[in-house]
Every structure is written in structure tokens, then in C-alpha cells.
């Protein structure tokens, strides 16, 4: 087997390039579309800051020039101004308000989903819990979101979507995100299935005969699969966050991406999509680091012998 560390390093490489690839892809597609790219990105009639934006992002000089200019600005935290979602507000300002909300929402939901995985691994959550979670999980995020929004509106009336009910909406959002589309149920089922398969392996039975704990033996071999499952589940949560944020009006990056798409505000969409790419890249990098750590643990040798 080639160096075990090859795959994690490839993953780290993918994590590093992902945030750069997404805007490049979007730029390439915009130029491939019929019609004048500048008109798509910043139509002259309202986005009249367009002349200055066109110059700064070099819209006339083809996709590569635009991409370099846009990326240069983006790395400096400058994403241009929104001309439709909130006309006149720098996109960076919209992002600085939106990113923390999404991080809290997806972070809390991710924590619960991780607990589901651990419950499956340690057997704390059994078949009944899995069946219940999967049953609830059949409902899509939009339906559970709708029910959650109704419950909040019953409690808070018109200012259900105002500032003072914000914390309640966040809690409801996390609950919906975790339960909907079988996130919790899937994580639990995935972990239980992987653990059951590993427990059936011979070396576990022999380890018991040697007086060792089965879980302790399985973990190093099980960890990479579980980490991979968890990352896929967190990416699914990011996907569900868009629906939850719009239905429960949580001002996150998902809501920004949705409103930007609906109002065809190009600057906001390319920025929000890149932020999502950064989130995904962080998850990829975390998985790579986890795999490196696991590889290290698997290859551990008693100190004295390490010479």
C-alpha cells in the first residue's frame, strides 16, 4: 500500500483548492452563458456602480482576469457591494453578520449528529432509537421547518420573526436541521451498521479471548469510516441549513445565498457560494487531520523500540 498518509494529504490538497475552484467554476459558467457577462454580473441600468466595479473586476478582460481580480479582492475581504439583496451594503458586511449565525446553527446541529454517531458506536442508542429517528427523518426540512415556524408564531405572534424570538428560532432551527431528512437517524444508522460489521470481524472475538475490550480494539479500524460518515452528514447539514434559515428567517449564509439567487444578485451569490466552499473545505481538512491522527495512532510503537 502506498504511504497511508497519501490519501489524507490528497484530501488536504482538495480542501485547500476547493474555495478557489468554486468561484472559478462560477466565472467560467458565466462567460460560457450567452449574453454579455458584465450584464449578468452588474447590469448597467441599476448596478451603476458597475463602471467602477467593471474596471476593478476587469469584466471586459475575460473570465481569468475577472477571477484573479475578484479573488484578490475577496482575500482582502472586499466582495463588492450588493445591488439587489440590500442595495448599497458591502457584501462583506452581509457576510460578517450571516456567517456566525450559520456556524452556530450548523455547529450545534453537527454536535448533536456527532452524538448520534457516538451513540451508535458505543451502542448507547439502540435499534428503537434508530427506528424513531428514521421515522421522523422521513419528513423533509421544509415540512418540519414549517411546523416549527408555526409553533413559534403561536407563542410570539407577529414578532415571532423579530429580534426577541431570535434565540427560540435558532433552537427550533437546530432541532429541525438535526431531525429532518434523516440527519440524526442516518448518522445513528450509519454508525451502528459500521460498528456491527466491525464487531463481526474475527480479531474482535479473539481480542475478547485475550481479555481486551472489543470497542478499544475496533476503534482504530472504525474511526476513518466514522469520520468520513460524519463529514458527509455535516455537508448534508450545510445543505439543509439553506432551507431551515429561509423558513425560520435566520439571517445566515444559506438565507443570503437563497435571496441572492432569487434576486439574481451575482456578487452576493458568488460570495455566499465561496463561503460554503470554505465551510466544506474546513470539513475536508478536519477529516484529513483526523485521518492523519488515526494513522499515527495505528502506527504507534512503544517508545523504547522507536529507534
Amino acid at each position, binding site marked *: 500500500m502506498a504511504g497511508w498518509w497519501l490519501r489524507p494529504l490528497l484530501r488536504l490538497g482538495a480542501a485547500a483548492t476547493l474555495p478557489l475552484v468554486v468561484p472559478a467554476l462560477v466565472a467560467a459558467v458565466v462567460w460560457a452563458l450567452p449574453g454579455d457577462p458584465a450584464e449578468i454580473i452588474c447590469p448597467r441600468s441599476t448596478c451603476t456602480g458597475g463602471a467602477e466595479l467593471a474596471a476593478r473586476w476587469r469584466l471586459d478582460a475575460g473570465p481569468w482576469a475577472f477571477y484573479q481580480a475578484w479573488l484578490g479582492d475577496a482575500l482582502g475581504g472586499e466582495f463588492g457591494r450588493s445591488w439587489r439583496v440590500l442595495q448599497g451594503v458591502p457584501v462583506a458586511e452581509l457576510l460578517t453578520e450571516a456567517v456566525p449565525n450559520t456556524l452556530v446553527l450548523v455547529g450545534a446541529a453537527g454536535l448533536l449528529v456527532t452524538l448520534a454517531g457516538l451513540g451508535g458506536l458505543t451502542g448507547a442508542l439502540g435499534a428503537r432509537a434508530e427506528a424513531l429517528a428514521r421515522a421522523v427523518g422521513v419528513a423533509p426540512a421544509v415540512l418540519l421547518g414549517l411546523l416549527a415556524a408555526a409553533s413559534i408564531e403561536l407563542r410570539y405572534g407577529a414578532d415571532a420573526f423579530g429580534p426577541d424570538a431570535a434565540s427560540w428560532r435558532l433552537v427550533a432551527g437546530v432541532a429541525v436541521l438535526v431531525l429532518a431528512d434523516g440527519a440524526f437517524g442516518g448518522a445513528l444508522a450509519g454508525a451502528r451498521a459500521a460498528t456491527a460489521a466491525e464487531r463481526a*470481524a474475527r480479531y474482535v472475538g479473539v481480542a475478547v479471548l485475550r*481479555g481486551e475490550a472489543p470497542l478499544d*480494539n475496533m476503534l482504530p479500524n472504525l474511526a476513518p469510516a466514522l469520520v468520513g460518515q460524519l463529514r458527509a452528514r455535516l455537508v448534508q447539514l450545510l445543505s439543509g441549513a439553506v432551507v431551515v434559515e429561509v423558513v425560520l428567517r435566520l439571517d445566515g449564509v444559506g438565507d443570503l445565498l437563497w435571496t441572492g439567487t432569487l434576486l439574481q444578485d451575482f456578487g452576493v451569490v458568488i460570495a455566499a457560494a465561496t463561503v460554503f466552499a470554505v465551510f466544506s473545505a474546513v470539513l475536508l481538512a478536519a477529516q484529513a487531520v483526523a485521518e492523519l491522527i488515526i494513522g499515527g495512532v495505528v502506527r504507534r510503537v512503544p517508545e523504547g523500540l522507536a529507534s
Partner: protein
Amino acid sequence: MSLVASLRGLTVVAGGRTLVRGVDLEVVAGRVTALAGPSGAGKSVTARACLGVVEVEPGVTEGSLRFPPLGDQDWLAPPRAAGELRARFAPLRGSYLAYAPQSAASALNPGRTIGRQLELAVGRRAPAPDRAQVVALVRDGLAEVGLPEEAARALPGELSGGQCQRAALAVAVAAAPRVLFADEPETGLDPVLRRQVVELLVEVGRRHACGIVLITHHADTVARVADDVVRLVPIDPEAS
């Protein structure tokens, strides 16, 4: 030579069928007792019962097992439920009792280096050895079974079948057990390796004054190395 284990009248029942009945076994330190018989005669069941690991219901229905060096407690006294036995034998497994598995390649933990597995086995000795002793014991363990020191850094997947069998033996013996159950050590090996592994087993066992229970169905092995033989005869289903 001291008696390290004595089993009387072991009977194990799985559902309606009796797997073994009336098995007696004396294990003496330093001697090889062969547990012979055709496959399906209950050799493995007997060994596992002695290790307190019975996965069938109702499991052990009769029999007594004593380890004289530990006093005259009957370790198979009722209650004999699987969970009960498993918990009762837990402190002995990997320290007083050891188990060398057959076809070791799939029995060693693929996610741990041989050195690490030896280190864990050594760590179960009583009293627990300190850092320096552990390293020495691991180094000796490897040398004893004829494995180079670099093997400590290898994963089971990176060793050959024979090397794995030796490593498994080293791990089993590392905990300085008083009774070692060697389960069909020759399986999956070519004739030349088979002879070497069995001789190595006997030699290491004697050096550690360990009572070896060699489970095998090869008559020539029994003849060559066994000091005593316990032959198991498969139970005729109609008879039970």
C-alpha cells in the same frame, strides 16, 4: 510439575443439542496436553468454556474447573449464564489464561502494530512492569518467536502468514500466562512452517513453565509433541 488447571465433567448444551459432555482435562505447567478429535467434536467449545466465553444458550450445564495456584474456587460453579461466566473469568483472560488463535493473520488487530499489541499484552502482567521492563519484554517476546525487532513497527497486514502466527504466539505468551490454549496453530500453513510453529509453541511454553493445551486434529502432531492426550468423540445426536 504443578497442576495449573483441572476440568471435571464439562457439559455444554446449545439449544436442544449437547456439544460436549463429561470432558475432563488436567493441565500441568510445562507439559503439552493435546485436545484431539475430529472437527466438530467440541475442541474449540471446550477451550472457550475454559476461558469463560460461551456464546450459546443455555451453555455450560455441568462441570467444574479449578486453577490450583489460585486456590480451590470452582470457576464453573453456577450461576453459569454466559454473561456471568464472561465477567467471572475476565481478570484471568490475558493474564492467567492465554489463547493463541488459528490463522493468526485475521486474528490480530489490523489497526495496531505488533509492538503495540505486545506492549498491551505485557501490560496485563501482575505486577505491572515499568517502562523499561515493558520495552525489554517486548524485545524478548519478538526474539523468542524468531521475529526481527523491525516487526514491532509492522501492521499484521504487512507480515506473512507464518510471521503472523509467530506474532500471535508472542502476544499470547507476553502476558506470562499459566495456561495457554493453542487453537489449531497449523491451519493455513504449509507443512514446513507447520512443523516449525508447533515446535516453537512447545519450546516457548516450556520455557515459561506454561501449561499448554494444544487443540489439533493432526494425529502426527499429537504423536510428536503431546505429553498427554484427551480425545474428544463427537456426540451422536440421537444418543443425547
